[in-house]
């Protein structure tokens, strides 16, 4: 049994410790907001926060997580809408298909937590998640909006 602290709740899961955290979250815990896109830390669809740091959960064996606090998209805000990043995403209507957006939002939230006033170059560096629908320009604008609204 492995104990996982996800969104403030401890889950006991009976799973091979080599299993990537992504699949434990999706299949053992049953929370599907965190997405699978590549499985090799390339696309960022599986991004979660581990002790505040944005992490590609497809490439983290669950056995290495220990007592760290995991936050998924479901735990970013209580109502799923009120985090400044979510509000900015709504205001600019960022999502198209939406499949990458859990990961994009988690990456943006981590960026702003660490760097409340990111420049365009900071955003280029931090936001390497793939969006096949091409919402990049709106993501950039929304990050600037969230940055302004949080200050």
């Amino acid at each position, binding site marked *: 049994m492995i104990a996982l602290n996800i969104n403030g709740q401890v889950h006991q899961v009976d799973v*091979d410790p080599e*299993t*990537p955290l992504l*699949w434990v979250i*999706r*299949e*053992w815990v*049953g*929370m*599907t*907001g*965190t*997405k*699978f*896109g*590549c*499985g*090799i830390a*390339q*696309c960022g*669809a599986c991004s979660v926060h581990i002790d505040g740091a944005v992490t590609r959960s497809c490439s983290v064996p669950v056995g290495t997580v220990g007592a760290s606090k995991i936050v*998924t*998209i*479901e735990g*970013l*805000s209580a*109502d*799923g*809408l009120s985090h400044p990043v*979510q509000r900015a*995403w*709504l205001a600019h*209507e960022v*999502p*198209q*298909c*939406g*499949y*990458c*957006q*859990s990961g994009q*939002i988690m990456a943006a939230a981590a960026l702003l937590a660490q760097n409340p006033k990111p420049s365009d170059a900071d*955003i*280029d*560096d931090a*936001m*390497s*998640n*793939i*969006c*096949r*629908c*091409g*919402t*990049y*320009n*709106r*993501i*950039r604008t929304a990050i600037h909006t969230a940055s302004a609204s949080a200050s």
Partner: protein
Amino acid sequence: MTIDRRSFIATSLAGAFSLSWKLPASAAGPAEVGIWAVIYPDDTVVVRIARSEMGQGTFTGLAQLVADEMDADWSKVRAEYVAPEVNLANKRAWGDMSTGGSRGIRASVDYVRKGGAAAKAMLIQAAAAQWGVPADQCTASASVVTHAGSGKTLRYGEVAAAAAKLPVPSDVTVKKPAEWTIIGKGVKRLDTVEKLSGKQIFAIDVQLPDMLNATIAQCPVFGGKLVSFDAKAVQAMPGVRQVVAVGDNAVAVVADKFYQAKTALAKLPIVWDEAGNGKVSSETIAALLREGLEAKQAGVGLAQGDIDAAFTLAATKMEAVYGTPFLNHATLEPMNCTAKVVGNTVEIWVPSQNGEASMAAAAEAGGVKLSDVKVNKLHLGGGFGRRGQQDYVRQAVLVAKQTGGRPVKLIWTREEDMQHGFYRPIGQAKMSGAMDASGNVVGLRMRIAAPSIVANLIPSALVNGVDKIAFQGMNPDEFGYMAVPNILIDHAIRTTSVPVGFWRGVNVNQNTIFMECFVDEMAHAAKKDPLEFRRAMMGKNPKHLAILNAVAEKAGWGSKLPDGVYRGLAQNCGFGSYVAAVAEVSVSDKGALKILRIVAGTDPGYAVNPDQIDAQVDGSFAYGLSALLYSENTIKDGRVVESNFDTYQVARMADMPRVETILKPSGGFWGGVGEPTIAVAAPAVLNAIFAATGKRIRQLPLKDQDLRRA
């Protein structure tokens, strides 16, 4: 038209995905006013949507069309899918469900608006009857019917139940564009909120009681077959339930969890029969295409004047060969489908661009009647043409037939997705141009050699062996340079073992690169400004010219740029819309390209939602720039070399230029918006690269090219 209400209620039990309402007989419940709208007592209007939402905004756009004609209060409008089996049971009352070719809106526009207008007429009629006044003394606005004489009002929610009992009028007229109140407005999408919190359930997220998970390996060599596998080698691995053959070319591991299935499949010994295709490579395919460039036989797409005479008499003749690679769609949500086979019935949960085609595929694979299939459509995590094909649906049903009635979710790994696509066709084009002594174009010749999408997917649509879709953007009603007196554009079909399919923008992409870059070559050879050079050929194409002029003006074509910044432009028409772009780029001494700004213009005739068109243009540039900069599927030993996003890179944030969109709907026609502008992305940038470096890049992607100054 009357709808079989029982079929609605029956299918609504299918779950919360496609068609979640029931239609109780009581007046306190929702009422079906015509076939497109369901109205609740609190004035909520649920618009039924037959097409698929894959990010392109069609869910919202179609609802706008119906709601505007209904004069509904937009703030209370919602949308829900019509299930394919409900469409089938009602003689396809909701029309075609196929969602591709940028047709979602433009092909539905007549009948959905008439459906909205009919609902409005019924609501007014019901209110008038309640008041005992003639209907023509009543008007409707924002979900309220008003009687002009008395000033009395009734809300839609109050009259919907009575309206639902009236016959649906068929002789309705739709509004004139000047009367639109919701169409043409950048209203908010109806599907955003769930996509911000992880609550949106995509097909890959479906969880059913007792569900198993599976993943699949298809013969890595295209056209190859499954010979055997050794299930015993993995049977004891954690969670593994079954190892099953899927059709004649694949094997799947079924397990409790997907990750367990994936781990076991990686260890499964499999023997394949390569069916003689194991030697196919990018080199053998390139040789085949080169031969096609010179072949005598080719299908003609556009011919006018006397092309041979033009070249004989020309003062200057030019020639160049261009090439573009195979491309996977790489939707971010990998292919997946959940299926449940119980007795003679099949139910599927699917991210499909064509719910009816999914239904047919499930019936065929399940060996059941079409009417015994239920389809739960879920929003797609990207489509781009890939999910018009139903291979993954068939496979899911074939697996579910072998699990004793338990539902199975089949998920492809990214590697499987990358290696088993329906790729954008590889292509080469030999471009030839003839100019007179003053640098006027007197002849244009284009020979395309490429695999044919139509021959691969819908061979019955070949016309005397000619693939008409191969000429997208180059057909007489699309080509922007019809004033050139002598033109010949033809296409030699060269078939390989690699399956090809519809990829966002389809053949307009390659054709526009070939034509617009070559026209740019001719302009430079004639020592003319590329904008003026094009204008001189556009006398017969005022709509093309107008959008080209619009982008040139907004980009400040001809004005001075900062040192080191250069411009390029491109234009075309595709999917019924006129598009043009100006790109501004810089190229460092080391050959590093930076795309700084794109000005993109679209004339789609009418614009349903300008804000979503802006998003589509922006997004289509990202897709087009991925293809320009990085993406390429190469072939070795009969299979695709690239396996994931490490070897198949796509555009990311840092690659993305500022995109300024110009929307100039000129009226009188309905063009698409999801695909057309993608076509001008690559050629505008390529032409800017030439301006910056003096280097003419004729083979994509750029990652393989040296961009240092010539």
